[in-house]
């Protein structure tokens, strides 16, 4: 089967405009099915009209990112938590 979606790591650049850390390596938990995994493992649709990251387990929307002129809109409602590894 041909994948319709993009690799989750395509989120690195667009999310890098917003976050100080590389969020694609952060661990997220799906609000719908509870699957945990790196944001870089999401199935990504887009990039236009916006990036939509879906859970590889249940296809629910984990995050949405729209980049307009002078602003970005980030919706993380499909994510229960993001675990970000940081130095002590």
């Amino acid at each position: 089967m041909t994948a319709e979606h993009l690799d989750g790591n395509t989120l690195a650049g667009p999310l890098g405009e917003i976050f100080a850390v590389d969020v694609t390596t952060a661990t997220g938990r799906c609000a719908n099915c509870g699957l945990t995994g790196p944001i870089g493992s999401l199935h990504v649709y887009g990039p236009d009209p916006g990036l939509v990251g879906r859970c590889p387990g249940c296809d629910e929307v984990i995050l949405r990112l729209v980049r307009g002129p002078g602003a970005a809109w980030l919706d993380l409602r499909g994510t229960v938590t993001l675990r970000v590894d940081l130095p002590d």
Partner: protein
Amino acid sequence: MGGIVSIISRGFHGRRRDAGDRLPPGQYLVEDFPVLSAGPTPRVPPERWEFAIDTEAGVTHRWTWPEFLALPQERPTVDIHCVTEWSKLDTSWEGVSLDTLFEDVDTAADYALVYSYGGYTTNLPLEDLLDGKAWIVHRFDGEELQPQHGGPARLLVPHLYFWKSAKWVRGIRLLDEDHPGFWETAGYHNYGDPWREQRYEGD
């Protein structure tokens, strides 16, 4: 105004109107038909397909695929405008006018939330679906509407940016209050008039 103006007819010697007149600000013309998706393409077999209108009073009107095809069919030729800046002129469709589908629907609602197989939603004022401005279409360019373009059936509201023309349409919920849809809650404009270049929230 785009939807009405763009339903054109040309005689044998009719001169095509200057494409510039028909191109909203910030748009460019395409000859192909780009596919933009926010998720996996739903595959809906006709025997499981249904279309519903849910009123604010809790009444649901439903059509199966054969019932939908038995309704009077129209063949609009319209220009379409995507918020990602491409426009396509003289696209030809076949389907059922929303005026036909609303004939027996008793409603005083001001707003509509369109919902699709696959979970997509989009909102618009109910008046933008009526008076010859919108259709549920199942054929494009003389052929069955392909799944990547929204088949078996999609909404067609050509006077608004094309994200309002929901693919894989499943129903319309009528509401007393506006309820922003998928892209409208993620930075895109709530109404989306291409002639006023209403792309993003605040435009």
